[in-house]
């Protein structure tokens, strides 16, 4: 691993205050108003409480915003000529992907760490293994969204498109049952959207699949539904990214 490259990349993201606001400040703020400060936060759910449930949701939201941004900017910077500049060096495409993947994982740790820290001080409660397992699933699930960012970047080739892709995550997050418990037809539709499986899996150690609804517990998702959703969207993003990378190689 080229650690000098990694260090400078991390400094770049850290200096980008607008991104940092969406990656770190917004999920932490959402958690405080939707989770930590709510009296229903202490209600028990599965192996823990509702505050824990909200905490995992907001950390996942921050993490996918982070990885989408990293993936999208990688695509845009390569097409704006940085790929040609790197093509003049011994650095391989594989080494570049390794650096960017490490950056995505590292940056996704910021919202996870921050939201979990606030959770720990404001009453989120669950056994230790639930904390660890949910954080690990959020990280892995969010990594898939760096491919989503990559696809948007490759398709539209502009920084503003990547910004729009991050913005669209708010809609996907609603459909992913992250901000507000859905029910009825909306819930059925939601089960086919890309954030639904990942967030369901991240909450699984806590809830064993039980769904929160506005009037208490509202049904549950079997594990296979969540896995099928996550795997399908991972394959869609991966195939899309490979096809677009091939197309882009012709001439830049």
């Amino acid at each position, binding site marked *: 691993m080229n650690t000098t490259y990694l260090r400078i990349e991390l400094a770049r993201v850290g200096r980008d205050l607008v991104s940092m606001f969406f990656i770190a400040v917004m999920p932490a703020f959402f958690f405080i108003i939707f989770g930590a400060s709510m009296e229903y936060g202490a209600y028990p759910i599965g192996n823990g409480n509702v505050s824990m449930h909200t905490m995992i949701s907001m950390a996942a939201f921050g993490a996918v915003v982070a990885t989408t941004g990293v993936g999208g900017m990688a695509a845009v910077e390569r097409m704006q*000529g*940085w790929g040609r500049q790197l093509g003049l060096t*011994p650095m391989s495409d594989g080494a570049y992907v390794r650096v960017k993947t490490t950056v995505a994982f590292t940056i996704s740790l910021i919202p996870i760490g921050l939201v979990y820290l606030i959770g720990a001080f404001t009453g989120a409660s669950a056994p230790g293994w639930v904390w660890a397992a949910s954080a690990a699933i959020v990280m892995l699930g969010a990594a898939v969204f760096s491919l989503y960012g990559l696809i948007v970047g490759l398709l539209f080739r502009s920084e503003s498109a990547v910004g729009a892709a991050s913005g669209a995550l708010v809609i996907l997050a609603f459909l992913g049952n992250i901000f507000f418990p859905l029910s009825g037809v909306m819930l059925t539709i939601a089960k086919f959207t890309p954030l639904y499986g990942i967030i369901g899996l991240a909450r699984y150690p806590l809830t064993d699949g039980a769904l929160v609804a506005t009037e208490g517990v509202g049904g549950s998702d079997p594990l296979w539904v969540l896995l099928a959703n996550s795997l399908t969207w991972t394959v869609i993003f991966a195939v899309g990214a490979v096809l677009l990378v091939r197309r882009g190689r012709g001439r830049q």
Partner: protein
Amino acid sequence: MRTPPPADGAPAVQLDQVVKEFRSTTGPVRAVDGIDLTIGSGEIVAFLGPNGAGKTTALDMILGLTTPTSGTISVHGQAPRHAVAAGRVSAVLQTGGLLRDLTVAETVTLIASTYAEHAGIGSVIERAGLSELAGRKVSKCSGGEQQRLRFALALLPDPDLLILDEPTAGMDVTARRDFWETMRAEAASGRTIVFATHYLEEADSFAQRIVMVAGGRIVADGATEEIRTRATGRRVSVTFTPGTRAEALSRLETLDAVHAITPDGDRVHLRALDSDAVARAVLDLGGTDLLVTSGSLDDAFTTLTQGATR
């Protein structure tokens, strides 16, 4: 200052029947249409040609950024990608290719980290004249300063062959002069330098050899002196009355001073080195509305291309 390239005997660049086609909606387009070229170690060569002549595509292939549709390319006897990985060839590419949110020093550090060995971050920053700007964000650098940064990056592997694609595009006159001044120092240390340009003056003042490219082919290749004579010249335009026109044209065709004749409605455009002699002849033949202009480089290319395909 630098070690001379290993005496492996192979030329710096060798292109053999190289063709590059791109797919487009209207069918394949041949950007490079069969180029044979050998550039020896230590030569300073200009690729001169109008926009779209295939210069960038040819240089991209030498750098291993794209592969030829057919034909072979070697750089110091190696495949282009290997020569790049070994740090034997490096380049200053056309616009783009920098991360705007990094500083100058960070950019150099970043690219230096990709090489196992490099010429030294401080050293290349100084040689490219960037010491004052090391802490500045790339986005705050002028076009000329960004170009100097690309040049610093190209110096990192201490390459035997340095390729410059339109290196002074977007620079003002002073920046352009400073850039070539720096480049002279690098050439003096024995590097092979190949640069693409569409400024005749640049090729003229810096290159020892000019390779003229048009329509994906080499239309002229020779010492700078020789090419200059062929590429310069003037354009003489004149109107003939319908009565005198036919006879005048046939007379002009016999004149040695006239290099090319292009009828255009009532008017006739002539290309000539000795424009005074041609002007005199044209007036004697009853021509009116005489106009003598210095030929543009595009005109020169047209002439040379026609000459090459005739």
